[in-house]
């Protein structure tokens, strides 16, 4: 047996996970007594304010859309639809704010209600709201939240510009991805990396281009290193990640209208996939067919490609400077 470290072609047994997300500090404080909407409640160490809200039933008042609260997933605290007012710290996100002894929480404060409502509408503003052709219709956490909060007309509209849609990733035999329905709650990335330890999914990009992608730099689910465990689809709050076979399960029967053609474009399997269970499959050069002819993502911004302000293509004045 050699005592040296021989150079070898064998890849390392574990590759480092690169989910693209920040290393958050542990949330949760010491055991505490908190007053929620006038009701005193004791919570054990490690509790957040949302835990205290759950103890009194006040969690009914907050959508806490991105919150999962099981299996060590989250809090991601990205949607900010769980904002509550506290005496000590003003408006805070209950899902990730430590319950501190003596804290007083008011869920009905104007500032907190407005924050929850505006943030829920902001989530909807970037969501493909074609519920009638969605496989998650009727069991979608975003739909539930919008109904519970009696959203009738979201302030900022919904993502219904089909030109702005990212093509559906229909390449995998097991899981379909519709990023137009993604609220970036990060549950799937945590399920994939922290629970299943597969290291397939990641968050990539920034600003309006932030999206769920693949750590192997693959463009499609089929070309990724996915092992088809399905955990990501299980935790997905919306119809963004959905198991194949049920993608049209709850679709209202409308002749000729399916989830796929409601999005307009999709990327289909290259047909070259050999074994969906193969791990560490890297990007291949297989062609990907598209139904609609778009070549990739758009960020949905109304000012794509514009360099100047005012945002108006009728001029090439460099905005802000004297004419």
């Amino acid at each position, binding site marked *: 047996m050699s005592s040296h470290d021989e150079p070898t072609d064998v890849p390392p047994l574990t590759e480092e996970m690169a989910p693209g997300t920040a290393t958050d*500090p542990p949330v949760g404080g010491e055991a505490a007594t908190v007053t929620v909407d006038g009701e005193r409640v004791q919570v054990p160490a490690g509790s957040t304010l949302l835990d205290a809200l759950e103890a009194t039933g006040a969690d009914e008042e907050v959508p806490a859309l991105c919150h999962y609260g099981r299996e060590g997933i989250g809090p991601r605290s990205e949607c900010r639809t769980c904002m509550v007012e506290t005496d000590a710290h003003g408006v805070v996100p209950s899902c990730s704010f*430590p319950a501190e002894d003596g804290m007083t929480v008011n869920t009905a404060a104007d500032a907190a209600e407005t924050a929850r409502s505006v943030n829920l509408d902001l989530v909807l503003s970037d969501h493909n709201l074609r519920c009638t052709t969605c496989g998650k219709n009727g069991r979608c956490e975003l739909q539930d939240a919008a109904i519970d909060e009696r959203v009738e007309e979201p302030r900022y509209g919904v993502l219904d510009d089909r030109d702005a849609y990212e093509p559906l990733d229909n390449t995998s035999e097991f899981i379909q991805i519709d990023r137009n329905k993604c609220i970036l709650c990060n549950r799937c990335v945590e399920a994939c990396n922290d629970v299943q330890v597969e290291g397939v999914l990641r968050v990539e990009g920034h600003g309006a281009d932030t999206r769920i992608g693949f750590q192997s730099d693959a463009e499609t689910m089929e070309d990724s290193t996915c092992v088809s465990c399905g955990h990501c689809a299980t935790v997905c709050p919306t119809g963004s990640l959905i198991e194949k076979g049920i993608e049209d399960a709850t679709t209202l029967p409308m002749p000729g209208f399916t989830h796929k053609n409601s999005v307009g474009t999709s990327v289909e399997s290259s047909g070259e996939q050999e074994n969906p269970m193969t791990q560490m499959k890297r990007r291949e050069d297989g062609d990907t067919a598209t139904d609609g002819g778009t070549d990739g993502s758009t960020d949905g911004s109304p*000012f794509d490609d514009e360099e100047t302000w005012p945002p108006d293509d009728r*001029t090439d*004045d460099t905005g802000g400077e004297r004419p």
Partner: protein
Amino acid sequence: MTDGLLSAETAVRVSGTDPGEELLAAARGAASVPVERVGPTGATALDPLVLATDDGRTALYAGATAERAESVAAGLGGGSFPGDPDAAVDHGPGPTRLPAAGTGPLAVGVRRVLGGAGWVVPDSPADHETAGGFGADDADQAALLDAARSVPGRGWGDGATDDPVADLWETVRGAAGDAAVVVNAHGTPADRLLLASVPFVVLEGALAAARVVDASEAVVYCSAADAATAETVTAAAAAYPDPAVPLRVETGPDEYRAAEPTMALEALEGNHRLEARLRPPGPAAVGLDGRPTAVHTPRTLAQVVAALDGAPTRLVTVDGDVAAPATVELRTGATLADAVEAVDPEGTVKAACVGGEFGGLTADLDVPLSVEGLTGADLGTEGVVELLAEGRCSVAFAGERARFAEEENCGRCVPCREGTQQLTALLRELYEGRYRADALHELMGVMSSSSICAFGVDAPRPVRTAMAEFEREFEAHAAGRCPAGACDGLEMEAHT
């Protein structure tokens, strides 16, 4: 320690952000006296600046060419200054800080923490010692905490923005685990100036912080775009005599958001994608690699050192519609107007955006440069003042900043990621004849109250303050008219 430049009675100094090798070589080739590269002074209008010292006097040659530097260096020592200096100052023997010129940008304000900028050799510990430096190394912890109590953290990259530094140090000290100090030099011109010109002042502050919080190392974090600065501070760190803890210098991506304290930590930990971390707890309790971490800007640390023997000052960079930007140091009580003295505005000043990228707009320059004065006027404390000349449009300015926020945010939280898109869209509506002030205020309020980090909290400020200060311009745009004429050529639709 070998003799530094400060002990030379006759010398030529070459100062500037990047005076160029050619100029330095020309001066060196011609001179029989020491010729040294010193750091920039902050007054970029004078760059490159050649300073010739002889017989208790120093002559300043602004905007020097290689030829001029050569003739100055060749002629020095003859009793009078060669050529035609822009200014000459009598200072007697051995000044340890840049001799104050009577006029020009160098005459504005005071030069305490900037005293050595443009005068000492940046990475020379001998110069720093001759100039009275390294005092903080001998200060006891009580004195350091006292000094830190009088200094509010400077800049959005600081872990204690606008709050007493001592409070943060006490949090770090009280948190479990092996502590660290991070010097966050990413982003602001004054921070770069300190590291490029007087790095020992900053390192002294970092080591003082390390002693108080019982840290095991201090890490300087620069933008990858600032290679020269990183080099200077690396040389200074290597030359630091007996540092209390090891010093190292790292760089992060050249992105605006990379200066946010938790994104700085993410970059230092090697994450390929930068997004902000949740808080609380903040980095003071759980920071670099999970350790309690004091994150401070160079400005903050330099001011703690300065506060050991005197009142802290403020560094302010004036930029925008000016002939050349300038960084000046001002005493407490000075106003924006005092800072603006250091520059040559291009035309009449219409307004200033105070507080960096997401600062606030004001037409009134009579605002005190203090935390209370600035925040009271809804302006930012970042230490960057951008002048807007007459003819600039406040709506266009606000729109540009909203779009910058839309493009540069980390993408993590909804109020910022989605809110900046809607903010831009609402401003765009002005050009279609709709001004929905209430909708704008509602959105901006929620962005500020519920975003994870200061990026999203501050991003609405340019729009909010422009609406307050220039409301008539907003209304005019919705009526199809740009009063400044800057949006001319656009078809604007009036209310119907």
